[in-house]
């Protein structure tokens, strides 16, 4: 089957075409860097996404921004969001602090992206 993708790794947004027979991704064309080549392979076989979200902070209605340290498998996105939503942190927190380790068994930590307290 023929796939047409737009790479999401950088703002260039390369159009990539590839074939996939359910087993192997072949004839990958249109990418302009290695990240694009890798993107085409994973996007067709097992797509991943970064998740950025907000956690509640004890004692204030102002939330704290967080992200997954690296991309997680796409089908896990809404489970991860639900997990983040029910999390409440106690300040102080610094950028990079682990907020939820190994979120939803993804093997990826959720970390803080801003300082509070």
């Amino acid at each position: 089957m023929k796939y047409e993708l737009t790479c999401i790794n950088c703002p260039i947004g390369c159009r990539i075409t590839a074939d996939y027979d359910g087993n192997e991704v072949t004839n990958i064309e249109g990418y302009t860097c290695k990240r694009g080549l890798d993107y085409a392979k994973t996007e067709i076989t097992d797509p991943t996404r970064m998740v950025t979200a907000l956690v509640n902070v004890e004692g204030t209605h102002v939330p704290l921004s967080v992200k997954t340290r690296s991309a997680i498998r796409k089908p896990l996105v809404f489970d991860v969001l639900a997990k983040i939503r029910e999390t409440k942190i106690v300040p102080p927190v610094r950028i990079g602090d682990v907020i939820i380790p190994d979120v939803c068994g993804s093997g990826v930590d959720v970390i803080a992206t801003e300082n509070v307290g």
Partner: protein
Amino acid sequence: MRNVDILIIGGGPAGLAAAVGAYEAGARDILILDREERLGGILKQCIHNGFGLHTFKEELTGPEYAERFIEKVLEYKIPYQCNSMVINVTADKVVTCVSKEFGLENIKANAVILCMGCRERPRGSLATPGERCTGIFTAGTAQKFTNLEGIMPGKEVVILGSGDIGLIMARRMTFLGAKVHACVELMPYSSGLKRNIVQCLDDYGIPLLLSHTVTDIHGKERLEGVTVAEVGPDLKPIEGTEKYFPCDTLLLSVGLIPENELSEMAGVKIAPTTSGAVVDEQLQTSVPGIFSAGNVLHVHDLVDFVSEEAIKAGANAWAYVQGKLPEPGRMVPVNMGFGVGGIVPQYVSDKAEGVINFMFRPRNVYRGARVIVEIDGNPVLNKKTLILAPGEMVNLDIPVEKLVGLDKAEAINVRIEVPEA
């Protein structure tokens, strides 16, 4: 009256980078003024990733990107004053500022860097008919509610305009449990980045209705729905194509306007094509010693380029204060040929040095086109491109030795050449 060497108006990405650029060039007497409670500008509310790939070779969120520069400002001990609103700037660089801490204050600067950023086009500028109900927000206002204040603006959403903030908010509202029914775009193409269409709309099955617009707004107290219609090549709604979308929230992502009221007070000349200051290759405005950088100069797509530009403005402002900025010389106008909009700089000195950075926005979508730079009709750069689109600014770095004939030039011309069909 307080005196400073370099006064920077705005503590967002441009202001922070301008301060860092000025400091690293040697300036020590710097002051950043910002009207908000803390530094960082709009980056504070841009919690999504995608910033800094160019500058830091890694993908950061907005707050993380801002923090990189804030840490430098703190490390260098560059003075800054938040909760301070600048209300006037004069041509001789006296800046009037109001704050709770110092009251009304005049500060005399040897150089000023304008870094006020931009604001969103509001509903009022769209002339969309309909009722004046609540539930209509600019995408950035909604972003501030969700990301900085923890408030949900609504549950059933339609987005008008497909600028990047609108696309990002389509995903954010979906993440927060809202249903986004459609993203409606007047033009036959999106003004947002392609990757945002994929990862913010396509991923969540949100339809992008190109060549469509909102033609009516319904609701007494709160928004109840909008009418959406297809538009023809003349961008006018086509009768009979109207469709009703029930919704309680309409987000507008219909363009950004550089915030230049202060620049105009100082007598800085504004370019109609960018709505920002007219500058030369040093980023100096028409008023000597006043520089401009970032979204107040022209609306960028990427914060990385804002930082780059502002660092340059900071260094140039310090050179100006020391009297070391190369003489402007004779100003050669940069003209926009076919397909080129909003070029910066608008003038290049005939004595320019180093690498000249040109930025412009393509007027339309062009495939396989060439970008051509000419001096008095002689091509000095001819660059092939895969695809050009209004949503993606073109960024050309040209070493001055390539601009053959600049010393005697009447004009520089930048144009796009489209391959024959």
